[in-house]
């Protein structure tokens, strides 16, 4: 058995190596540096990767404290608050990336879920609201659940539509949520909800740790949430669900024929994306401490989408980078405030023309077998626990799932 299968696998590995060479030749003109960086990253062993990740995470946690002179947005904008804003956008981008990047569903109304999360937190904690009041931290899971519920309610009728029809329907949904927030008296329109709750804890001088003006603890909280979400999403991505999403994105009809219940997984993508949107909305409401109908317009949805595509749709690390950049650029360049959106627009066009797959493009990879399979296919010797024939012969790199 393994005698027969062994050569097949190595032949596959050979062709994969050739393929990898060919692709690196093709990309020599542009992106060689990221390519090389990525190859080097993939050549590292798992513990080495973790070590590097820990360094990056520690640096990320130190970001608001370090206040690096070139990066900082001060004096125009408070740097820790800018960090929070970047983290918040990054979280949104991670959530939207599930819908747009993995499942390939074009969602132009993502801000609606963000709004639902914000309003849930505000209405359950603000003294202005007649509702039941619960501690702020409890509103976070509630906000996620409510946003998820809205995701399912929107998804079930609309996810039977394809592509651009879905785009316009979600766009409409985003507008409807905003307008309803204006019309329904209980949502208080432009007056909004003040004094939204915050996590408990008071510093020595009697000021709450999570004060609205103090971005650092909020940034740390959001960063922690991002890391947890990234871990969960990473697992999801490598699971049956993640493979189903990629199959739907690449060819919905083919996926359906191969037995993927496309509708079910599309609703799941929508619901999970919505939950992450609600989560970020809840954090946003807590930090700002005030929620009204002014922040949830179509333009925000479009900025979120821009963040995902800018970072590289389908790549969760890219989504974090894209989200952070989209928040950072306007905050950094306040000195040229009048020009910042012009620059942003031109930058979007230029980046899309010259790096049309985003800053960190998603890339072909074997989702099911992960790191070890990758190393075997590119021919790196890795002490594998399985015998050589353990990989099913059907795992042909040519049929590798793209991502």
């Amino acid at each position, binding site marked *: 058995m393994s005698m027969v299968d062994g050569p097949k696998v190595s032949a596959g590995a050979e062709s994969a190596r050739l393929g990898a060479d060919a692709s690196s030749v093709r990309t020599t003109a542009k992106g060689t540096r990221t390519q090389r960086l990525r190859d080097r990253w993939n050549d590292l062993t798992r513990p080495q990767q973790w070590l590097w990740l820990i360094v990056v995470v520690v640096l990320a946690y130190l970001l608001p404290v370090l206040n690096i002179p070139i990066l900082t947005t001060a004096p125009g904008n408070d740097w820790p608050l800018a960090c929070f804003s970047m983290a918040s956008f990054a979280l949104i981008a991670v959530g939207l990336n599930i819908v*747009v990047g993995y499942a390939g569903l*074009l969602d132009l109304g993502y801000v609606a879920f963000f709004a639902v999360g914000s309003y849930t937190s505000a209405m359950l904690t603000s003294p202005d*609201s*007649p*509702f*039941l009041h619960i501690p702020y931290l409890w509103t976070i899971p509630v906000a996620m659940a409510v946003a998820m519920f809205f995701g399912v309610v929107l998804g079930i*009728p*609309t996810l*039977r*539509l*394809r592509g*651009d*029809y879905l*785009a*316009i*329907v979600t*766009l*409409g*949904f985003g*507008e*409807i949520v905003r*307008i*309803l927030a*204006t*019309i*329904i*008296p*209980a949502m208080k329109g432009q007056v909004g909800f003040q004094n939204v709750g915050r996590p408990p804890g008071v510093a020595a001088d009697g000021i709450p740790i999570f004060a609205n003006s103090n971005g650092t603890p909020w940034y740390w909280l959001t960063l922690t949430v991002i890391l947890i979400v990234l871990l969960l999403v990473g697992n999801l991505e490598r699971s049956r669900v993640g493979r189903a999403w990629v199959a739907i994105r690449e060819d919905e009809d083919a996926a359906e024929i191969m037995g993927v219940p496309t509708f079910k997984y599309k609703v799941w993508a929508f619901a999970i994306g919505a939950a992450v949107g609600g989560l970020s909305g809840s954090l946003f409401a807590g930090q700002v401490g005030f929620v009204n109908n002014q922040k949830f317009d*179509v*333009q925000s949805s*479009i900025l979120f*989408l*821009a963040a995902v*595509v*800018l970072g590289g*749709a389908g790549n969760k690390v890219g989504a974090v980078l894209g989200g952070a950049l989209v928040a950072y650029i306007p905050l950094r360049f306040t000195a040229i405030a*009048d*020009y910042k*959106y*012009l620059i*942003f*627009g*031109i*930058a*979007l*066009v230029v980046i*899309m*023309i010259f790096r*049309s*797959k985003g800053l960190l493009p998603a890339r072909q990879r074997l989702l099911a077998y992960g790191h070890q399979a990758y190393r075997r296919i590119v021919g790196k010797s890795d002490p594998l626990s399985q015998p050589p024939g353990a990989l099913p012969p059907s795992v042909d790199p040519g049929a590798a799932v793209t991502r």
Partner: protein
Amino acid sequence: MLELLLRPAMENDWISFDVPSLIQNFWSATFDGLTFGAIYGLVALGYTLVYGVLNLINFAHSEVFITGCYAVVLVLSSLGFGPSAPTMSVGLIILSLILALVAAMIVSAIVAYLLERVAYRPLRRRNAPRLVFLITAIGASFTIQYTIYLVRGANPEPAITMFRTSPIFDVFGTLITDQQILIVVAAVITMIATDQFIRRSRTGRGIRAVAQDPDTATLMGVNRDRIIVITFVVGGIVAGVGALFYVMLVPSGVQYSGGFVLGVKAFAAAVLGGIGNVRGALLGGLLLGVIGNYGQILLGNSQWTDVVAFVILVLVLLVKPTGILGTSLGRSKA
């Protein structure tokens, strides 16, 4: 528990149906809706044409439209038009309006042309994924908006009244003004002209060929890039016509960011009628205008217009996922 949660939301009636008011204002709502809907239809045409040929939501089309509005406002204000009705002779007014129309058509067409050349063609050369086109469109939209912002500032332009509107006749007790008739008739004529252009002319045949199958069309000797540019330019010209009538109907408040919301609704109109379908654009526009108006009167708040419009759009798409008329540009008969 659930009751405790929901009761505060239910306490005050946030939704009420004012049926008598709708019956009373039915015809005026219909005619106002048709007038506005005609303008939606003109803008929707640009979306639908580009979508038919490229399968692309041209998000920057709203900016093509708003630059046309600026052209109208600037030409007319330099000709002496202002917030109050002009005192010049009728012939002079007509001449000025034609001048403004031509200016708007040219400016919109140029913007549409530049958009295609600078933002979209490089992407086509690189075979970029479709989502990237959308983001580029958004980037281009930002760029155009804020270029206008830098040139003309954030404040809305002063109002331009083109002529004193007067009622011509009344239908079911509702006065219809010359302005309403002019707008609807002109919009329908523009639509018919565009439709005929696409159905009968040689270039129109090229547009349909590219919409149907770009590769085969190229093999048959159709210059694809040229056809795409022409499609953008035609969309721009029609948007310029829409711009003149928009300023005629809503004289004040032309603003750098003003195109976006109208653009979204025009796109919704295009989808409602069946995107990629020229006649569908007009039908969708008129329907969206009328239904939005009914909803506004029935529910008693102008904010409801958009909610009603989008809910109707969703309902129609659920029943008929390709819009009302449904056929694509490529499959329309010669």
